[in-house]
């Protein structure tokens, strides 16, 4: 992408100097891109880079009940991993929370990937006219434009104790007392996260699938591949960039999630994001910062592992 724009810029400069405007513009094009990029760079510096730096710094500070004190101490990290080694093989709270978050992450990732790929595959290969493709694609994206809180509470009429699912099951005689674990449970969290984020898989995978040269599939069929072989040997490898982008999105969102696990888990499920949020409420900033640094490190390791799995440069 950048290479293409680089060559464009080069070509334009060549032409500019060829027409003799070169000397007049020489100072212009040198400075102008910097001025144009400055507002965005400034926003990211003030509201993204510096805050991350502040988080890392504060994670090494001390805190008392009333204030935070600049220092260099490992106390906060020590607090978080306190007893973790001593209690082995039992897991300490920190490890249990991370494992629980990771569990949700993997389940939701598997769900969104399976559903997302299937839907994207259907849209890309089975919907024949562009018009219907656009309509179906838009149908998939409309819920993305509504509030995630609304999308969460909209499960209440269906999953609640007297909700549609329980009422239906009772009237069919399958169960006699309402199931309690439908709402405010692990199940509700997984369902809701899948509901919220499958779109993040559909869009990039659909994009990758649409770029696949259809003659490759014809060639595979002519060479005697069956449908399953075409899928696993031709289509899935070519859809890798999309699968990768979708996976990164879903995994990072679920790892840092505290809203869905809070609301759909009935505030009973521990997650890393929720720990950070609670510590912020109790003004334990250095501790929250240390937890944020650990979460960030965990997410970056995950992303790095995914990128290792697929070499993007080779895929593009």
């Amino acid at each position, binding site marked *: 992408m*950048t290479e293409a*724009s*680089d060559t*464009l*810029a080069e070509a334009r400069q060549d032409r500019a100097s060829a027409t003799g405007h070169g000397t007049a513009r020489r100072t212009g094009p040198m400075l102008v*891109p910097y001025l*144009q*990029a400055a*507002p*965005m*760079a400034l*926003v*990211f510096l003030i*509201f*993204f*880079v*510096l*805050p*991350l730096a*502040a*988080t890392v710094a504060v994670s090494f500070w001390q805190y008392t009940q009333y204030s935070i004190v600049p220092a260099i101490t490992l106390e906060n990290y020590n607090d978080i991993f306190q007893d973790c080694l001593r209690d082995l093989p039992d897991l300490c709270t920190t490890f249990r929370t991370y494992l629980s978050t990771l569990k949700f992450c993997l389940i939701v990732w598997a769900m969104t990937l399976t559903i997302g790929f299937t*839907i994207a595959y*259907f849209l890309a290969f*089975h919907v024949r006219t562009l018009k219907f493709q656009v309509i179906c694609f838009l*149908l*998939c994206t*409309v*819920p993305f*434009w*509504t*509030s995630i*809180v*609304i*999308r969460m*509470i*909209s499960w*209440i*009429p*269906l999953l*609640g104790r*007297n*909700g*549609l699912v329980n*009422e239906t099951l009772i009237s069919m005689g399958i169960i006699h007392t309402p199931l309690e674990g439908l709402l405010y449970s692990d199940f509700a969290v997984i369902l809701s996260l899948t*509901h919220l984020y499958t779109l993040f898989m559909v869009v990039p995978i659909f994009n990758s699938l649409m770029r696949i040269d259809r003659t490759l599939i014809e060639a595979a069929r002519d060479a005697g591949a069956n*449908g399953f072989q075409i899928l696993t040997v031709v289509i899935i490898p070519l859809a890798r960039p999309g699968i990768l982008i979708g996976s*990164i*999105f879903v995994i*990072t*969102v679920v790892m*840092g999630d*505290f*809203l869905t696990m809070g*609301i759909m888990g009935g*505030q009973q499920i521990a997650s890393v*994001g929720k720990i*950070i949020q609670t510590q*912020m409420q109790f003004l334990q900033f250095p501790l929250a910062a240390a937890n*944020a640094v650990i979460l*960030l490190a965990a997410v970056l390791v995950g992303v790095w592992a995914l990128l290792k799995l697929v070499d993007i440069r080779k895929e593009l």
Partner: protein
Amino acid sequence: MTDRRPRSFYVLFGIFLLFMMFLYGPMISILLLSFQSADGGLVFPVRGLSTYWFEKLWAGDGQVAIGPALRRSFVLALVVMVLTVTISVLAGLAFRHRFRGATLLLYVAISSLIVPSIVVSLGIALEFRLIDDAIKDLGAAWNIGWIQSNFVSALGPFTSGLGAHLTWTLPFGLLIMFAVFNRFDPAFEEAARDLGATPLQTFRHVTLPMIAPFLIGIAVFGFTLSWDELARSSQVMGSDNTLPMQLAAKTTTVTDPEIYALGSATTAGSVLFIILMFTLVSLIQRRRRRLL
């Protein structure tokens, strides 16, 4: 390819329909339940048909008081929208040239998308608290009365909140601008320049009209992403609340369909906004076709 659909089509079509039910079913159910009459509850069956809960919501005397949060969210979303479009277009123009730090800026923008929102939110909150402390120290050191008596915090919807939303909307804006300028034919700008247009005139009369429909796309992203933003807002709004935050806080305490009415109303708001924007796009394009 034969005209008969393979069997896999019907299987996948069935899955697609199920997925649509999964996506829309819950939303349709709260839409239905929000039109109940006064004795309606949180679950089916639908009791009566009226706009009772919408009226109650509008009057603001129910369990959900949303007036100030709604206004704040709306103004914030408008500001975020304007800034996102402006900053993204400028950055998009910059990326058409070569400049030092271009790759770094792109990587920072992408990381801003994938760093967990709670970490970004916490970081901005910490940064602003440090700024608060510095301002208060300054006030004490130089004996500035206004700071000592009136200053509480720099945290607020239009300082730290605005910044937090921009870290979420700008990466989308930048990526859209990349897509736009990758397909952009610079010949038109060349022609304008050859006819003696200044760079500003070229941008105003050639580039801007050509990219206008996509700018509306960025505006839609900017507005709706900010309007619905919750995770990054959580720590940075100071003592104020945005609409999604208010809504999230109410989920545990509200016991009547008023919250469904609020859900239906905000969803209808976003859908109307998007329809309005896309109508604008098609109007622009129709006018352009007529001119050609």
